[in-house]
């Protein structure tokens, strides 16, 4: 649009493409984290719709450990930037 020539347009597309991928990455991370901590922490008999105390503290620790695994594997993959 506001670009002066074809090459700049492609550069701009790449910047927007990168931003989009960054966002998709975070959404994907959040969704996987949410799913796996639900699987690990929540009683599937659904006797009530509230989270009980045990579930709540399990969730907090699950998120914290998932975060650490993300960082640990990020280091192994040799990425210099933090995973978010």
């Amino acid at each position, binding site marked *: 649009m506001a670009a002066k020539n074809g090459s700049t347009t492609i550069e701009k597309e790449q910047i*927007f493409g990168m*931003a989009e991928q960054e966002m998709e990455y975070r959404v994907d991370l959040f969704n996987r*984290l*949410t799913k796996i*901590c*639900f699987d690990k922490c929540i009683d599937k008999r*659904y006797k*009530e719709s509230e*989270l009980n105390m045990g579930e709540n503290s399990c969730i907090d620790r699950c998120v*914290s450990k998932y975060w650490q695994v993300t960082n640990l594997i990020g280091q192994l993959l040799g990425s210099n930037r933090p995973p978010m």
Partner: protein
Amino acid sequence: MDKSMLGDLDSLPEEDKIRMSAMIDQLQIRDSLRMYNSLVERCFSDCVDNFRRKSLDKQEETCVRRCAEKFLKHSMRVGMRFAELNQGAATQD
């Protein structure tokens, strides 16, 4: 998904800000539609196992309601913890 998760837009020129904002809106809509589908899939999978009738019975309906409510509360709590970690809050035992 919280819009604040997706980074800072203030540094962009006006035109790009509009475009970036539209992109974020689209991602949020897509994410919420997928979340809807995955919530239905999960609660159906956990609560419905008997196919002798065409309609949900009371017990299945109750199970689905609790499952969905529980998942949404869970998701909010994960979102809060996730945001804290994103902001670099210290995490100790």
